[in-house]
């Protein structure tokens, strides 16, 4: 555990290069998602009137326990589910009216390891790249670059059927950015990774920021949010509780870390909800 922490601590957070007048990557206004309750039960308010902005080039974290509404928010933004109410746009494109434009701009790393088991890692990467109509040569070059950056060369030649959880997470991440997206949604991207892989992934996500790519990251790892995010929104029971840079939030709530911030607001620990 101590070794894990020291390995993760050696990660250097990239400098904040966001300008106040940067364009908005994501604009969310009063977003709601209610799921119909079973007979005799009330509707489940998975997301209840959430509003926030994410600037272009920012790493923005959605932090909260399981069931807080993080994944539902992402699923609405990427067009997988329709909001009950509210609006959202990605680089100015409304998520409901211009979903096909939105899809060209984004990459998504889902929580589940959704890859074809009978294909090798590389075949999976190239398949998803081809769905973005990338020219063959560009796709090959991009796949080589990402495989090398994440030290995934050997694994990429094997069928994914025999992959460990950590390897599947790495493959998931590579697939999500194969199309060089302006905005990447990373839903719990480091679950199942060992400390070395997690550190490499943090560096990798940090590099996306250096390339001025926008990232929306959901995580329940406090240290991950603190290490990577320029700003975080803490959500619980579908409501946005607070938003700000980790440093400002810790100062505002007089706490040493974001776990303390969550506890001050809700009276519970983030891990309690898991």
């Amino acid at each position, binding site marked *: 555990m101590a070794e894990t922490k020291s390995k993760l601590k050696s990660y250097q957070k990239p400098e904040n290069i966001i300008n106040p007048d940067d364009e908005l990557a994501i604009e969310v206004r009063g977003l709601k998602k209610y799921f119909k309750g079973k007979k005799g039960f009330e509707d489940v308010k998975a997301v209840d009137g959430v509003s926030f902005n994410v600037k272009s080039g920012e790493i923005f974290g959605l932090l909260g326990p399981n069931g807080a509404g993080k994944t539902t928010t992402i699923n609405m933004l990427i067009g997988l589910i329709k909001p009950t109410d509210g609006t959202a746009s990605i680089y100015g494109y409304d998520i409901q009216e211009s979903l096909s434009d939105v899809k060209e701009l984004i990459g998504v790393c*889902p929580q589940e*390891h*959704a890859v074809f088991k009978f294909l090798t890692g590389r075949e999976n990467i190239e398949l998803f790249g*081809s*769905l*973005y*109509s990338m020219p063959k040569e560009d796709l090959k070059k991009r796949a080589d670059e990402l495989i090398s950056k994440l030290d995934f060369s050997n694994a990429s030649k094997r069928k994914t059927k025999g992959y460990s959880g950590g390897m599947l997470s790495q493959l998931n991440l590579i697939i999500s950015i194969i199309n060089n997206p302006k905005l990447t949604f990373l839903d719990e991207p480091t679950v199942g990774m060992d400390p070395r892989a997690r550190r490499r992934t943090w560096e990798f996500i940090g590099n996306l920021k250096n390339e001025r790519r926008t990232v929306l990251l959901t995580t329940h790892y406090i240290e991950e949010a603190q290490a990577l995010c320029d700003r975080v929104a803490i959500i619980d029971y579908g409501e946005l509780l607070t938003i700000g840079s980790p440093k400002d939030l810790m100062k505002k709530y007089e706490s040493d870390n974001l776990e303390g911030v969550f506890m001050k607001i809700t009276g519970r620990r983030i891990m309690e909800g898991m």
Partner: protein
Amino acid sequence: MDIRRLFALLKIELKKIIREPAYVFLMFLFPAVLTIVFGFAFSDPELGMSFNAMAPGLFAYACIFIIMIVAQSFSDGREQGLLRRLAITPMKASEFMGSQILANMIIAMLQVLIVFILAQFFGFSANTNIFGIILAILLMAIFSLSSVGLGLITATISKSSGVATGLSFLFILPQMFFGTFIPITSTTRPIAMILPSYYATDALRSIFGGSSLIASNILIDFAFISIVSFVIVILGIILFKKYGNK
């Protein structure tokens, strides 16, 4: 529709069939084994049964099992989150469904060839020319559409791939018993008349039996299979899109 995307997905579908042992068995070995077993069992003149008469039913028999493959494949994709992941990309639903339909049409055509070649060893003689064989292959490709559609309907109503396998027999068994090589009685005829496999077998029997390729019964069978298969596959796509991918 982006043809490159459609072919990328088609290539993956065909790779799955080659790399997954269960699919290899159901798609290619099963029709081969079936032809060999039935060939040995029914080609003895002492039995008084003609393999020639039952062989056309074997073509349809193999193609019916596409229902199970499609139902399993879509249920698996849904369980593993693959369908959701594909839906996030710019890929259009029509490209995905198109790739599935094309892959299964290719499989159906290969199945016809496998059964046709093996049946020759048991005395099956197709009393037709090359156009008749092409027509038979085309007919089975169109018939496979109905199997894809019924597979999609099965996946829509199934909660898991295990359930999908079981439920697929709701569509497989009637077509197997009342629409292929098992003799039809006056009691089972009304059931057979609503099954696509009955018309497929009937058309194949006429084609291989030496009828003119534009004989009225072949044209009627062809029209029936085309219309019904098209309706079933469209219905399957609509139902799966609306209720199946949740």
